[in-house]
């Protein structure tokens, strides 16, 4: 018997297995062949297509859609994967509404873009379901490259380097590859253990050794790596989490959203995962939305996202905001946390309304209290554990266009490096481009 929505505190089993299964099913179910043909037919095969320009990995979108139209999705997959080896995951998690689909001429014409993301998924799924890996390794170059961090940037770099004939060792602090694909991201965007399956498929290229439980600054040192390898690529992500800096932050029930999401993604049985009755998520990015929506889907009664700026400034796209609203999440704008209240465990949160003047947020003095037995902090992640020797730019490792850091022989990409948005697709592009630069530097 499932615990009801109304059960107080942080409780497991608010929904039964059937309810959980329904709630966590695919957000955008896969197309069947006919649906794909119809969707593909909407593509106008634009000249110098805007969608391709908008894609951080510059996938030739009109070309792959035309290959779907003509009935060979396997070629379409190859077109995608040549540019973006994690095209399968990107098809699921890319905020296409702010990238390729935003600039689709169909969006201009009728407010309904070609569903590029779903078509990409159709193509890549078709190929991957056959268990085929479309690329082969070049002859060995005898060069060895270390990749630190098995997230999207690291995997993209490793694959490209291996394909070019280098021997690659990928280190990761966790016991599993995938980075945020595996530990972040809402579960309904990556169903059926897709992230892990994609990694296995990617590794079919050969020449890549995975080495888990190895963390830079602990088991690994940059000096050690640079002396043992011909090149080093750092893709260590953002391991730190910003604090609320509000009284009561240490109370039970207050935790980092990324940790909750990771736990949820790794949970064997979601009915066993506890969630609050009244959940408040502090923040305005994708992590905030993912934590809030999934809390709701686990059966929380009231879920609120509290963001200190306006809707327009929210990091999560309008699509994500609407998704949250459609699942019953309440969105509050221009409120910031003032205190978490409760006797030992969180029971309420006090929020203060804000004004934003010249980009600066200040409290108006007016406050509101919400019931909150669980509070998730989703106010940004920060670089943590980076080698001191590397120059920073802002709060990230400074890199050139092709990912070169301030230290010779060391490249970096993904969320830990400067430049680009913190998106899976951007990380893939950075990993791939750094790999190409490492290759030319090693072979030059």
């Amino acid at each position, binding site marked *: 018997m499932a615990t009801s929505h109304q059960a107080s505190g942080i409780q497991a089993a608010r929904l039964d297995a059937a309810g959980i299964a329904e709630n966590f099913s695919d957000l955008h179910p896969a197309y069947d062949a006919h649906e794909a043909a119809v969707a593909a037919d909407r593509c106008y095969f634009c*000249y110098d297509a*805007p969608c391709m320009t908008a894609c951080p990995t510059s996938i030739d979108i009109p070309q792959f859609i035309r290959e779907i139209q003509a009935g060979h999705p396997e070629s379409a997959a190859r077109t995608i994967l040549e540019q973006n080896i994690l095209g399968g995951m990107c098809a699921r998690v890319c905020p296409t509404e702010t990238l390729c689909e935003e600039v689709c*001429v*169909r969006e201009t*014409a009728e407010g309904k873009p070609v569903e590029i993301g779903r078509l990409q998924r159709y193509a890549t799924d078709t190929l991957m379901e056959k268990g085929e890996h479309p690329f082969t390794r070049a002859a060995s170059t005898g060069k060895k490259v270390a990749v630190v961090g098995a997230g999207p940037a690291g995997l993209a770099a490793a694959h490209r380097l291996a394909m070019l004939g280098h021997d690659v060792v990928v280190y990761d602090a966790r016991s599993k590859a995938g980075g945020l694909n595996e530990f972040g991201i809402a579960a309904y965007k990556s169903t059926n253990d897709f992230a892990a399956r994609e990694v296995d498929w990617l590794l079919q290229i050969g020449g890549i050794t995975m080495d888990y439980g190895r963390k830079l600054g602990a088991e690994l040192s940059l000096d050690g790596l640079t002396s043992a390898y011909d090149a080093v690529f750092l893709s260590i992500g953002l391991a730190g989490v910003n604090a609320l800096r509000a009284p009561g932050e240490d109370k039970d029930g207050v935790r980092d959203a990324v940790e909750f999401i990771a736990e949820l993604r790794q949970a064997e049985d979601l009915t066993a995962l506890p969630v609050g009755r009244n959940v408040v998520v502090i923040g305005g990015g994708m992590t905030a939305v993912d934590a809030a929506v999934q809390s709701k889907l686990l059966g929380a009664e009231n879920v609120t996202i509290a963001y200190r700026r306006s809707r327009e400034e929210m990091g999560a796209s309008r699509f994500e905001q609407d998704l949250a609203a459609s699942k019953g999440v309440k969105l509050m704008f221009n409120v910031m946390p003032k205190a978490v209240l409760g006797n030992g465990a969180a029971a309420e949160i006090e929020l203060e309304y804000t004004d934003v003047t010249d980009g600066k947020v200040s409290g108006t003095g007016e406050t509101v209290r919400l019931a909150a037995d669980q509070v998730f902090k989703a106010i940004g992640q920060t670089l943590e554990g980076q080698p001191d020797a590397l120059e920073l730019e802002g709060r990230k490792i400074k890199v050139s266009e092709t990912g070169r850091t301030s230290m010779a022989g060391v490249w970096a990409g993904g969320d830990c490096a400067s430049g680009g948005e913190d998106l899976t697709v951007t990380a893939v592009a950075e990993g791939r481009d750094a790999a190409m630069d490492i290759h030319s530097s090693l072979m030059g």
Partner: protein
Amino acid sequence: MADLTTEFLGIKSPNPFWLASAPPTDKEYNVRRAFEAGWGGVVWKTLGSEGPPVVNVNGPRYGAIWGADRRLLGLNNIELITDRPLQTNLEEITRVKKDYPDRAVIVSIMVPCEEQAWKDILPQVEATGADGIELNFGCPHGMAERGMGSAVGQVPEYIQMVTEWCKKYYSKPVIVKLTPNITDIRHPARAANAGNADAVSLINTINSITSVDLDSMAPEPTIGGKGTHGGYCGPAVKPIALNMVAEISRDAQTRGLPISAIGGVTTWRDAAEFMAMGAGNVQVCTAAMTYGFNVVKEMISGLSNWMDEKGYTSTQDFIGMAVPNVTDWQYLDLNYVTKAKISQDDCIKCGRCFAACEDTSHQAIAMSEDRVFTVKDDECVACNLCVNVCPVENCITMVEVPAGQIDERTGEVVSGDYANWTTHPNNPSATAAE
């Protein structure tokens, strides 16, 4: 609601939409359903001579071409004429005509090219009370190999001869159905006319193979590993049919010969176009076979709505109105100059016009850094390709350059005078303009 009552060869029907001779009109059951749905008339599926019934293949009879959402664009068939006993058909025709006196019932016939065969069947058909007959000189498969169907339709002398027999042994209107599988449709039409046919109907189906199965390496439809050409019909063939109808409408020898138009009629507009091109009515098959008999309801409402808008009170008001505007290339006005114009408000910036013009035409469209597409008047030959490939209707239009203005491509002032190829200085056989 405009009155759609149409009189064709003196045969009245409540609307100009008849079902063509084909599977939909093979049986009393189907025809009754058709009349209940509102069809103005039917041409009963082709009857053959008395004797052992025709045999059809037991594998697929149809092949097709589709758009992306399985919208059927073209249909091909290898079915033969009716495979039911002659007497059964005659009895059914008699019953149906008796029950639906206001609808047109025409009987399609195909018997061997011998006078006796026609002399035998025609009185029997006459006895049914049907309103007329249609001579199937068009079927391109199966029967043609036995010297019937298009084998007759491809020899004008035979057409004339058989038409004369029919006029001799049958008192009601005789319609000659023409095959498009010839080089010049005017010759068989003239032959029908010479044989005193009351009308021609066209087109019958076009020789076709819809596709090849790349696994079995056999044409579709495939019967036991082999295939044969069939007859093509449906929306894809409409332009071919429209041209053939126009050719007959404007030919000096056949002008005024009533035409029942067939070929891809799917909506009211197709029908209106055929009728404007000189057809007294239209016959439909593929649209009914794709969507069922109810498609006629849209045809009725659409045509009637359009007639109301135009102020036409009878189909007679617009039949043939487009015929005077069909001419030969050599008479087209070479002083008529247009240029493509792109509406920036409507443009969605897909760039298809640019790709088409730059790669395959006259390099007359410019593309800016920020994807603004504009026509270069000094390069534009007004080919219309950009209009045709643009996904937005009316975004690109052809605008006439008025007389007196300079055509930037030629640098010459546009003349207001009509001038065609026959008088053009580059024409070696030009006749003097004066």
